[in-house]
């Protein structure tokens, strides 16, 4: 692996009594789109600020491009930030905002004009230079903030929940645009969000955080399909999570039945949690069903129906189906062994990865 552009080595940080970062280790490769995903207060913004320099760490080291930068002030770090509230200077127009960073250096006027024009162009705001900030819409402000950051040609761009203030439609457009911009510029993006959909859609790699700890990292698919624990499973997408017992390798028991699965490497009869994604459950006839449920309600979500159902033991199930099913009807539910994902309690990411390694190579 090439030298990481950012490396956090056993980084801790607390404010008074509350510890916001607990022994964080993290490596980011150049040129990728990373996302820190977690609920508010999970410590993701603090990680971002240790990289931008607005937060000093209590313990551990922060490396940028191989150099330890713990003591380097923010204005001398080769990263730029797009702030959550954009932080556009209201006393300057769009042009001056974007040009701000360059005017601090001894860049010639003509050069500044050229680069501002090009930066505005790359965020689709040609000709907005003379606008006042107060005249801009939320999306336009967002773009100006991005232009102001990328004009500095940083090696890395930090984005602190930049889309959270936008409406759903604009948000979706900006997701595409950001992804496209990152690929075009080829620089590392570290993006913060609490929106799992956004994270899944945009990232090369996601770090799921809670309570100052990185719970799991991996590609969107990895994390979606194989969440490490209840929190991640619940936070990333919708899921049915049930208590179960691992009877032996590849056999798990839940809702009083044994099912074949693809997980292994656990103690026999170990209590576990089982995750099943709603879209992996298929509705069939009662006879063909591995489970029998009664339909409670359903919501039409556009591309699918979101169906809430209850099995005979009283467990609730969430099922995504392309077809509508009448309410109160009894139907069968079926799934494949690889639709079952078994999670151990309190398993660390390292152990999880190691265990996966042992039996996945068996296949």
């Amino acid at each position, binding site marked *: 692996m090439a030298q990481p552009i950012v490396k956090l080595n056993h980084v801790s940080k607390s404010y008074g009594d509350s510890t916001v970062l607990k022994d964080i280790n993290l490596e980011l490769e150049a040129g990728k789109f990373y996302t820190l995903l977690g609920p508010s207060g999970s410590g993701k913004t603090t990680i971002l600020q240790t990289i*931008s*320099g*607005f937060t000093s760490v209590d313990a551990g080291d922060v490396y940028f491009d191989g150099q330890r930068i713990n003591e380097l*002030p*923010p*204005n*001398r770090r080769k*990263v*730029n*930030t797009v*702030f*959550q*509230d954009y*932080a*556009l*200077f*209201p*006393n300057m127009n769009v042009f001056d905002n974007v040009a*701000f*960073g360059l005017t*601090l*250096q001894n860049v010639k006027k003509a050069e500044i004009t050229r680069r501002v024009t090009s930066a505005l162009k790359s965020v689709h705001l040609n000709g907005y230079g003379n606008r006042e900030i*107060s005249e801009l819409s939320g999306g336009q402000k967002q773009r100006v903030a991005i232009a*102001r*950051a990328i004009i*500095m040609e940083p090696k890395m761009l930090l984005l602190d929940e930049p889309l959270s203030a936008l409406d759903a439609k604009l948000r979706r457009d900006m997701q595409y645009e950001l992804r496209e911009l990152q690929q075009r510029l080829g620089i590392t993006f570290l993006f913060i969000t609490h929106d799992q959909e956004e994270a899944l859609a945009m990232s090369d790699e996601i770090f799921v955080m809670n309570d100052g700890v990185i719970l799991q990292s991996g590609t969107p698919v990895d994390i979606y399909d194989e969440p490490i624990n209840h929190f991640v499973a619940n936070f990333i997408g919708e899921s049915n999570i049930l208590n179960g017992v691992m009877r032996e390798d590849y056999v798990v028991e839940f809702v009083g039945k044994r099912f074949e699965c693809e997980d292994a490497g656990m103690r026999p009869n170990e209590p576990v949690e089982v995750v099943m994604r709603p879209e992996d459950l298929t509705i069939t006839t009662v006879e063909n069903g591995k489970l029998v449920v009664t339909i409670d309600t359903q919501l039409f979500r556009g591309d699918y129906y979101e169906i809430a159902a209850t099995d005979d033991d009283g467990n609730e199930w969430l099922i995504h189906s392309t077809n509508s099913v009448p309410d109160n009807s009894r139907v069968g539910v079926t799934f494949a062994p690889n639709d079952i994902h078994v999670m151990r309690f309190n398993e660390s990411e390292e152990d999880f990865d190691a265990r996966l390694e042992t039996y996945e190579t068996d296949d």
Partner: protein
Amino acid sequence: MKSKTANLFYFIPYSLWLFLFVVAPVALILYNSFLDINHHFTLANYTTFFKSGTYLMMTLNSLWYALLITLVTLLISYPTAYLLSHLKHKQLWLLLIILPTWINLLLKAYAFIGIFNQTGVANQFLSFIGVGPQQLLFTNFSFIFVATYIQIPFMIMPIFNAMEDLNQSYINASHDLGATNWQTFRRVIWPMTLPGVKAGVQTVFIPSLSLFMLTRLIGGNKVITLGTAIEEHFLITMNWGMGSTIGVVLIVAMVIIMVLTGDAKSRGGFQK
């Protein structure tokens, strides 16, 4: 229709107030300024004012001292407001700074007489450090010192409010884009708190133009401003016409200051 009459109705107390306590007095002052001591219409007051070296000198004096007071007040208040906005219990500290404004001006002036006189605390200190007692009262220094002390809360308040409106993220953004502390101050903090500074300058400069109590109590009448002249014309000479004329000149001076510092609202209007 109903809401319109209601709005009009609610406007009555304000317009009454405005008329009784703003428009009418100013009109009266203006009217009086055209009357001579025998209540005959005349322009003589104005010719007297603008032909008299004394009054013109006094005007210059007033402007000069007001400028000095404002400048010193600003130099002290700006860093204080900045510091204050970064303190933990800032509302408490702010209260402590505002507290002296609850005390009567005269009381404060007398307190300073006690501090600055020959046997006062200030001179005791000077003696202690070996400088020996100095004449502190009745000097320009003591006058400006006390005037500044009295005006500081009125300067700190608007600047503090502007600082509070100044989100930390603006400062972070500036640093993030490579600005040093000084560049951040010059390019971001100062321009964004300028409306507060302007408001402070207005609230300090304008009353400073016509201080007269302090000129006597602390300045020993060695500092003479237009306020002194107005006081004399109204209370001793009873030449209300001339007093009003000086008043009109002061009002015009204030309007000029307002216009000069007044473009604050048109640009950089903050939205929270």
